[in-house]
Structures are given as structure tokens and as C-alpha cells.
């Protein structure tokens, strides 16, 4: 009987092991990207998010912006609602904790303007070339909620959706930023493959991405393009030359990332688990011996 139990446990473990790679397998397709605009009341951030050939929903777009560009976010209500973006919003599990302020979801109307999304972001399909916007404000409908600044896909992602020069990172890495430092992209998080515009492009030159981590300066420019290229590798997109100043990029939204080092307490918890499990095993063995005699 015990043997059978073991074999079934083994089977379960094998099944789990077999499922995990399937689940994580991502098809590396030709690149495509969608633009994401996050508009807090004081700042405006734009992200060119690689979709990796697949279409995603509005929530996954945020998740990808998080893994590719270090956008800080917090989801709630089963991952279907947006509580916090760029450190603005409800910090708890109640996404409407700051009501009447909340994150409104907007979709592009094809010409730089915005349409209020009547559907929840998790039920919206975002395709390559789309622009999605989130704006923080009051108002329960498109007529009263403040839309993000007018933004076109081209202003965020360059002229056309460019092919991906590098394989897409298959998992989000930790350590997108450290503490309150502006993000200097040498370590960890710089796997983004945003096609970068030419040097001296006025759209880039006058945006506010060289500000400090707090993002105090008002960024009225909707074209605040973000580049997180790692030092040492430059993204070469067909329509763009490498960016000349990768180190000068701040990550105003990544200021609260945690220390990437494993906390001691986590290891303490694992050790505790091991000790308890061993004690349980000893107790069971002793009991068996007692019952056997």
C-alpha cells in the first residue's frame, strides 16, 4: 500500500513537472508591439510593449510592461482590475480604495485620440499596433473621466512595428530597480527590445525621462518614450540607430522595487518547515514502533 502511495505521489510530481514547461513555453514569433500609456495626475509614462507575436489582454499588457520596462503595478479582484500603476492608486487589495479616484481604461480611436473602454481590460484583446491608456482620475464614464494625453502608436513605438532584433525574454526578471536610485540599466532588468528612435529626435529630446526617480517634474509631453536598454547591448532596429544615452534614463515608476536578495526570513521559514517535517517523521516512526509491539 505504501508503495502504491509512493508511486501515485511520484506520478503526481511527474505530471506537475511535465506541465510546467508546457505552460511556460512561449512561442518566439516575429515581434510586434503595442503602446501603453499610463497617465497619473502629475506624470505621463509611455511604454512600447513587445507582444511577441501573440495578442494579449489589457491586463497582460500591463504585466508585460512590468516585466519588460519595470512598470510598477498591482492588480486586484482576481487579477482582473488595476489597483496601482506607477505607484499611484490603491495600495491595498481593494482597487477602489481611493474612490472616486480610480484607474480608467481607454483605448485608442485610431487617430491619436481616446475611446473609453466599456469592457474590462481582461476581456479586451490588445493587438500589435494598438494603443491602450490608463488614466488616474474621477468620473465613472468616458464623458467625465480625464483621458490620457493624445498619443499615437507611432509616437511611442516608432514609425512601424519593427521586427524583434532579439528573442523575447521568456520570464520577467527580478531587480528592475534598486531602492530609490534612478534606474541605471546595467543589471537585470534591461531586456527590453524597444525600437529606439534616432538620436536628436525632437520627440525624445524634449521629454522628461531624464528626471529623477520621484518624477516630480511635470511631463506634459505625451511622447515620453522610455528606453531601458542595458549598457553593453544596444537595440538595433531597422528604422533606428542605437540610443546614445542609455545610462541617463530614469525609472520613475520602479522606485519601490524590493531588494533582489533573498530575505533571511524566507530561508528561516524553509528551515522551520524542514525541522517540523523531520519531527513529524520521527513521531510517526516512534508511533509505528509502539503500535508494532
Amino acid at each position, binding site marked *: 500500500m505504501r508503495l502504491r*502511495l509512493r508511486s*501515485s*505521489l511520484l506520478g*503526481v*510530481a511527474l*505530471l*506537475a513537472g511535465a*506541465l*510546467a514547461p*508546457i*505552460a*511556460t513555453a*512561449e512561442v518566439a514569433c516575429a515581434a510586434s508591439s503595442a503602446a501603453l500609456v499610463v497617465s497619473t495626475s502629475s506624470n505621463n509614462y509611455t511604454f512600447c510593449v513587445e507582444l511577441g507575436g*501573440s*495578442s*494579449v*489582454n489589457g491586463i*497582460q499588457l500591463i*504585466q*508585460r510592461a*512590468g*516585466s519588460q520596462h519595470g512598470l510598477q*503595478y*498591482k492588480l486586484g479582484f482576481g*487579477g482582473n482590475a488595476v489597483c496601482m500603476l506607477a505607484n499611484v492608486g490603491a*495600495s*491595498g*487589495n481593494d482597487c477602489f480604495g481611493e474612490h472616486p479616484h480610480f484607474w480608467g481604461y481607454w483605448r485608442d480611436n485610431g487617430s491619436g485620440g481616446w475611446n473609453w473602454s466599456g469592457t474590462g481590460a481582461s476581456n479586451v*484583446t490588445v493587438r500589435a499596433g494598438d494603443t491602450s491608456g490608463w488614466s488616474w482620475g474621477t468620473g465613472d464614464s468616458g464623458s467625465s473621466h480625464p483621458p490620457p494625453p493624445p498619443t499615437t502608436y507611432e509616437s511611442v513605438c516608432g514609425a512601424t512595428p519593427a521586427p524583434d532584433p532579439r528573442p523575447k525574454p521568456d*520570464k*520577467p*526578471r*527580478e*531587480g*528592475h530597480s534598486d531602492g530609490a536610485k534612478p534606474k541605471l540599466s546595467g543589471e537585470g532588468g534591461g531586456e527590453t527590445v524597444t525600437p529606439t528612435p534616432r538620436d536628436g529626435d525632437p520627440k525624445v529630446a524634449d521629454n522628461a525621462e531624464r528626471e529623477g526617480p520621484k518624477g516630480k517634474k511635470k511631463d506634459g509631453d505625451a511622447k515620453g518614450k522610455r528606453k531601458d536598454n542595458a549598457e553593453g547591448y544596444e537595440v538595433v532596429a531597422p528604422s533606428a540607430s542605437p540610443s546614445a544615452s542609455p545610462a541617463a534614463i530614469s525609472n520613475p515608476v520602479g522606485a519601490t*522595487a*524590493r*531588494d*533582489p*536578495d*533573498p*530575505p533571511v*526570513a*524566507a530561508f*528561516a*521559514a*524553509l528551515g*522551520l*518547515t*524542514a*525541522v*517540523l*517535517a523531520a*519531527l*513529524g517523521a520521527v*513521531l*510517526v516512526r516512534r*508511533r509505528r514502533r*509502539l*503500535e508494532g509491539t
Partner: protein
Amino acid sequence: MHQGAWLLWALSGGLVAITTTNPFYLLPLLAVAWVVHAACARPGPQARSFRIFLIFGALTICTRTALVLFLPDIQFGNVVEATLEGLRLAVLLTVFGAYNTVSDPFGVLRLSPRRWHEPALAASLALSIAPRTIEAVTTVREAQRMRGIEVRRFRSLTALAVPVLETGMEEAVVLAESMDARGHGRGRRTRYRPERWGWQATIVSVACVLAVGVAGSALFADDASLAMSAFPIVWPEVSPVMLLAIVALSAPAWLPLGSPTRKSR
């Protein structure tokens, strides 16, 4: 130990489990359930229900993880999140499995005030259905083996199901008759050998209340360590207070609860 204390223990363990998806809380809780089962399980076939629940827990994790495949776009974070949610359910099941092995379902029934006797009876029957079924399966299998009937896993399922169901029916009838004979449902009821609330029960209850209090206050304070963020995957914070609260739930394992092996039913 008093059945009420066990009930409180199971409730507390379950409550603490459902507040968190942090694996560094869930794994110690799993170990706590295992230790309590190891130290306090009552002898007999029902002690095996812990294993059964453990297997069900593993299946739960697999199922919850496999559900990720239905997402339109799978990221590693989705898988991690799903697995952790599965782990939470599995820990809940394991705590319940441990409760099944340490408690006496009809002892719980005796605790209920007379007015709530019927719902308590239903609840205790529902609580005890897993250990009773396991017990019945074991008995039937043994009987079949002794009679030279080959016990295969799947083919003999029908041959197993009928006697098991019949045993369940019989048990229900016997229970109803015995309750009738003892004057249940007639408004008078005496307590034969009422259980005593010992100092062990007090200590366990205090530990349980502390654990739930810590977990509950962390929940209402929006403690970030309760949920593990999977986008991006970072080491979750682990609060030592919460760890201590979880360890406190293992109190029944360290207290002298009398020798359960000598107690016969």
C-alpha cells in the same frame, strides 16, 4: 483533548492558510499540519485520511496549474501564481486532513447545544464522511483479499463501490437508531462522560486565537508579505511574527494530550 479545541485548531489553520499565497508561510503551515497529525492522530484506519488529503492536495496543485493552459497568453508569472493558489488550497485540504485524523466527529456532535443538534449532526456527518469512507474501503478490501478475490485498482472498482456504499447506509441507520435509543430529538439528553476542557485545550485555543489574530491583522493591514507578487517574481517578504503565529498552531503536537494509542473506542 477537548473536541472543541480541535475544531478551533482546524478553523484557525484553515483561516491562516486562505489569507496568504506566500509559499514561505504555506510550507511551514503544511509542516505544522503534518506534525500535529504525526503526534496526535488517533489510531485506526481513519489515520490514513491524512495521506488521502495530501494526495488530493497534490492533485489540486496540478489542476490549478494546468488551468493556466487555458489562458490566451501564458507567462511564467501566471504559472507561478496559479501554482501558489493551488498550494493554498492544498494546505487547506491538508489541515482538514489532519483534523480528520485527530478528531472524533461524534465527539464534536456532542458539543453542540440541544437546539442546534440537527445542523450539528449534519455537519459532523459531512465532516466525517472522508474518514468513514476510507475506513469502509479498507475493511472491504481486506475482506475481499481474505476471500481470495483479486484486488485490482480499477477493475474491482464496482466490486468495491457496492459494499462501501452499503456500509455507509448501514452506518447511517445504526447511527439513527442509536441516537433514537439515547433520546435524541425528544428534547432531553443526558451527557454520558462529558469531555473535560483541560489546560491543554486552553493553551491550544490561545495559540489558535493568536495565530488567527496575527493573520487577520496582517490581512486587514494589507501586509504585502501575504501575497507573493509574480510580476516580476521577487523574493516575498516574510514577517517573523507571522511565522511565529504559524508555528504556534503546532501547539497540540507538543502538549501531553494523553496517550491516544491506549484509548479504545
